[in-house]
């Protein structure tokens, strides 16, 4: 199921692969250690602080601040058609950081380090297979979520 995640997938399996199902349901999840409560994004199964392997997903608001960015002109395999595209690192309000491309609501020219942004879960509707990812959007952008307890 983790192969659902990303424009190109290199990692089909992971102990945190339920992340992709949550993303499909409109939820951005970090992980919280059940033993010491250490909370982090990107998700990880094994706590780097107390070594526990007992974790749960914790929903993130997706709010954060731009940490850095670059507009990529020379694209690697699988991204040629998208170039030029801008990637940014976002410092998340709930802890941890993520890297993603800018969505349609943000212009690379107006991007600045420290600026408030919103990370939004996405499903690629243009392809037959399930493809989920997230984009970086203007602060305040909203999106639809599946009802609570949706399983697929």
């Amino acid at each position, binding site marked *: 199921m983790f192969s659902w995640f990303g424009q*190109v997938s290199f*990692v089909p399996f992971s102990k945190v692969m339920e992340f992709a199902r949550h993303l499909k349901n409109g939820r951005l999840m970090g992980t919280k250690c059940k033993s010491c409560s250490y909370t982090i994004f990107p998700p990880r199964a094994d706590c780097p602080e107390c070594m526990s392997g007992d974790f749960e997903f914790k929903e993130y608001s997706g709010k954060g601040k731009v940490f*850095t960015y*670059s507009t990529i002109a*020379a694209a690697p395999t699988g*991204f040629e058609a998208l170039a030029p595209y801008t*990637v940014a690192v976002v410092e998340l309000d709930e802890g941890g950081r993520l890297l993603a491309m800018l969505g349609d609501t943000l212009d690379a020219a107006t991007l600045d380090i420290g600026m408030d942004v919103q990370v939004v879960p996405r499903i690629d509707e243009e392809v037959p297979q399930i493809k989920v990812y997230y984009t970086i959007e203007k602060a305040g952008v909203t999106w639809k979520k599946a009802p609570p307890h949706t399983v697929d």
Partner: protein
Amino acid sequence: MSRVGVIGIGHGRFGRRSDATVQELAFEAYRMAMQDAGIQRQDIDASVIGAVPEYHKQRSIAGVIQEYLNLNPAPTWLTEVACASGSAAIRTAWMSIKAGLHDVVVVIGCQKMTELATPEILALMGRVGEVQWESVFGTTFPAYYAMFATAHTKQFGTTHEQMLKVAMKNHYYGAQNPNALFQKEITMEKALASEAVASPFQVYDCCANADGAACVILASEEKAKAMSDKVVWLDGIGCATASMSVLNRPNLVSLPSAADAAKQAYKMAGIKASDVKVAEVHDCFTIAEIMAYEDLGFCKKGDGGKFIDEKQSYIGGSTPVNVDGGLKSKGHPIGATGVSMTYEIISQLRGDSGVRQVPNADIGLTHNVGGIGQYTFVHVYKRD
């Protein structure tokens, strides 16, 4: 504590070497180093090969090179830490000598990169970063360093022109280095007109893939003194790591592994940054050299742009850096780079660098970075 010395050095031509296999490239550098040291293969106890496996069609390259050098049955092994593989080879050779296991160890850094087809290179470029959470969004190697450049500009006001001045310096010296891939100077106008790669970087901010090899021969203090009258001593070594993922770094204006490795190496060698007379640093991208000035303590944090503006890293400046052309001008055959840096420092400390000689060079340093600072090796060399 007994010392470990360098008794022989060799360096082949870097570039598109479609005339030679990787073991043939290795042999060019090996032959030069053996002749330089004036020793026979019976004197060699072991070899260490620094190379990154995924570029070669031949698997397990250390065994193939050991056979081609006619060094069987002496031990050999490969070290891999991305672009710092060559310095890792030097570190493990140093360790094996310090442990008393070997007396004379050949170190070869080598890489053949241009035999890969462009689609294979583009696919590899897409897996430079952490593949689970980052590469899935189309990151590239230049883009990672570009994100450091963006952050450095925001925090310290470093300009893209300052970054390109690093490239101009390195091309200026590379034009005087017969082993370099690009042996010509560049202008700011030409650099600013070059194609976009990953903002703020353009083509001239980036080093180029290349083929090549370099070799150094390390020996125990006793053997070095017996075998050579021009020994240069490896008196300080440091190595540190930082997160693979750019998401887990404390900041993106410095490579913490470089600062940590430098601290270790300075302490072991009993020197401070201002004692370094000539340095070879890992300028895979222009911002990387600016961060290296700062991480190594050649200037204050944030003053790297000013340091190149004032030409402090030119010969005649406070710390000449990459006066062989650096990765930018020599090309970057990744496994070979750390050993190539070492070749240059030994040559400088011997006083053999001709038109590029730094006056009174008695202490030299190499700074070799793997990836975006996942690994850094800093080595301090001294002549007696």
